[in-house]
């Protein structure tokens, strides 16, 4: 029984991490119809920059704050310099982001090399914590991840539902031309949203990297997870990203615990089932 609880918690916390990664991805797509296939590289970039900051200053919190900002800047530059000129051409945008992801991944490999980088976590979130139920100890850091995911989730909800910017974003997702016709500077909104997406990716990179380690190959892996989560949850829907992340996290952990060899296939099978039954995703709009 205690194993089951632990595995469920693992699933929830992993889902939290996936939500962090996928939320930026889905936002950017929902508003700008850009599939940012460089999202994984932004994640990896965040992980490495965060490590460098943490290593140089000895302060992990500083890394968590600064690295996502750095990645956000990179994201905005990417969007303004490259994507803006080919706006509206989905395939070209996808190809550009693929090109960027290849270049960024290779440059990071050149700079940081092939080995793993470990974060040094502050002691309060490092190590086991007693949960009180069934006498279980559980890593404090994973609880922390879940906490951050909840905070970010609520923050995004608040942003989208209760602020003017959020209103503009939601309107833009529904009908971009109309928004532009109402006199709102759509380009500015795009830049902000892309920067936000990159920020979330960078944050996920620091948080995820602190959990396990930062290494080459994580970019492709987390891009794939983002895709799966967003396909299941529905493109453009932040709520969908949450739901998808939860499902994927739980399914993959149960799979790993009980059928380890083929666990990854179960995750994909889930995705295929959702596609067959409801192609736009669980909470997505019919396109």
């Amino acid at each position, binding site marked *: 029984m205690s194993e089951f609880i632990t595995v469920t918690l693992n699933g929830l916390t992993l889902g939290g991490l996936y939500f962090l990664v996928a939320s930026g991805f889905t936002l950017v797509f929902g508003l700008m119809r850009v599939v940012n296939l460089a999202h994984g590289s932004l994640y990896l970039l965040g992980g490495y920059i965060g490590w460098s900051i943490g290593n140089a200053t000895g302060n992990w919190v500083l890394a968590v704050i600064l690295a996502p900002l750095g990645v956000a800047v990179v994201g905005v530059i990417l969007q303004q310099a490259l994507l803006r000129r080919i706006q509206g051409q989905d*395939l070209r945008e996808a*190809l550009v982001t693929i090109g960027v992801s290849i*270049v960024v991944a290779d440059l990071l490999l050149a700079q940081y090399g092939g080995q793993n980088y470990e974060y040094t976590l502050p002691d309060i979130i490092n190590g086991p914590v007693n949960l009180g139920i069934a006498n279980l100890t559980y890593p404090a850091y994973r609880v922390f991840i879940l906490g951050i995911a909840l905070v970010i989730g609520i923050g995004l909800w608040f942003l989208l539902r209760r602020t003017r910017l959020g209103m503009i974003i939601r309107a833009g997702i529904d009908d971009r031309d109309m928004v532009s016709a109402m006199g709102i500077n759509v380009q500015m909104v795009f830049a902000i949203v892309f920067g936000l997406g990159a920020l979330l990716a960078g944050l996920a990179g620091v948080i995820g990297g602190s959990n396990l380690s930062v290494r080459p190959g994580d970019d492709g892996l987390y891009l794939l997870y983002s895709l799966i989560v967003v396909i299941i949850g529905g493109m453009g829907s932040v709520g969908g990203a949450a739901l998808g992340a939860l499902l994927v996290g739980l399914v993959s952990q149960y799979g790993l615990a009980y059928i380890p060899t083929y666990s990854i296939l179960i995750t994909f099978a889930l995705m295929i089932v959702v596609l*067959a039954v409801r192609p736009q995703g669980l909470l997505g709009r019919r*396109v």
Partner: protein
Amino acid sequence: MTILRVARIACLIAIVLFLLTFPLFASQFLVVQIGIQSLFLGIVALSLIFLAGYGGMVSLAQMTLYGASGYLLAILTVTYNLPWFVGVIAGLLFSTLLAAIFALISVRSQGIYFIMITLAEAMLVFYYADQDRIFTNGHTGINGVQAPTVGSLVLTDPTTFYYMTLLIAALVYLGLRYLVRSPFGLALQGIRDNAQRMQSLGFYVYAHRVAAFTLAGLIAGIAGILGTWYDGAISPGSIDLTRTINILVIAVLGGLSYFEGAFIGATFFVVVTTYASSFTDRFNTLIGLALLAVALFFPDGLVGLSRKTVQLITRTTVWRGRVPIPLSSHKPVPAPGNSRTVASDSVAEDEQFMIVSVKPEEEEKQP
């Protein structure tokens, strides 16, 4: 015969002669590593260009279908010791079947969704191949796959293999060029341009797409047989994310609307990856930058595709009121009387077409 036409024909003859005599003047390494690899990778890229440029479906599952036939060939000929033709036929059947299954799942989605779904399907097969110990032998893959000796043709000889691959590549290329002008091909292009309109004309849009995807699966499967014989083995490393993206890069670099682009892109890619590692470790950056350059500045065949894809998407997404971009930047072939272009540049370009008669207002039964 204009000078332009003469020049084109001379060029064509020069290329053909070059390809035919390549093994006579090039070193064996060039023939094997560059020549043969470019050819079978080009065949996979052909299948992608067929789907993307003429069908409006950018599929990232082509290398997976390559792997499907390769794996079945390897399993049957090495693990079960069956004769080579059993392996080949089974491999081709399997890749075609798998393509049909993928198509049935994915074909209802369009544009960027389609890309992502095929990517996910490709990764699914990759992880399965990487994990399974019963058939695919996991990460190690299957070694010892040998090209057969057919009568007096010893296919393990590189020169013989080169000519066989060249022949097959030529046949596939010419076959596809013929196909896109056939009713099936024209209908497919029509579906690419405007699926709803085709549907209202009575075409079975989904069935058409599934059929096109399945055919592309067969083509990729052919390349899979060749590639597996070339390597003498198959492993999950042949169908991972990197190789999947490589085919896309090849097709884009070459030009997504042009079949020739498949081989040009493949040759360029193989040359860069083979030689770049001699003087820099950053050849991946080079490839990425090349892709960026093409996507940003030299869309060429890419522009046509992206425009057509946007057409497809804008019909069905929430961007109402967006004016469709004209499909073709080329002037249509002038025709007598009242005429209407059915499909796009690929037809208009070929000067061998002549519209001989037009009969307006005639009732016609749709195929």
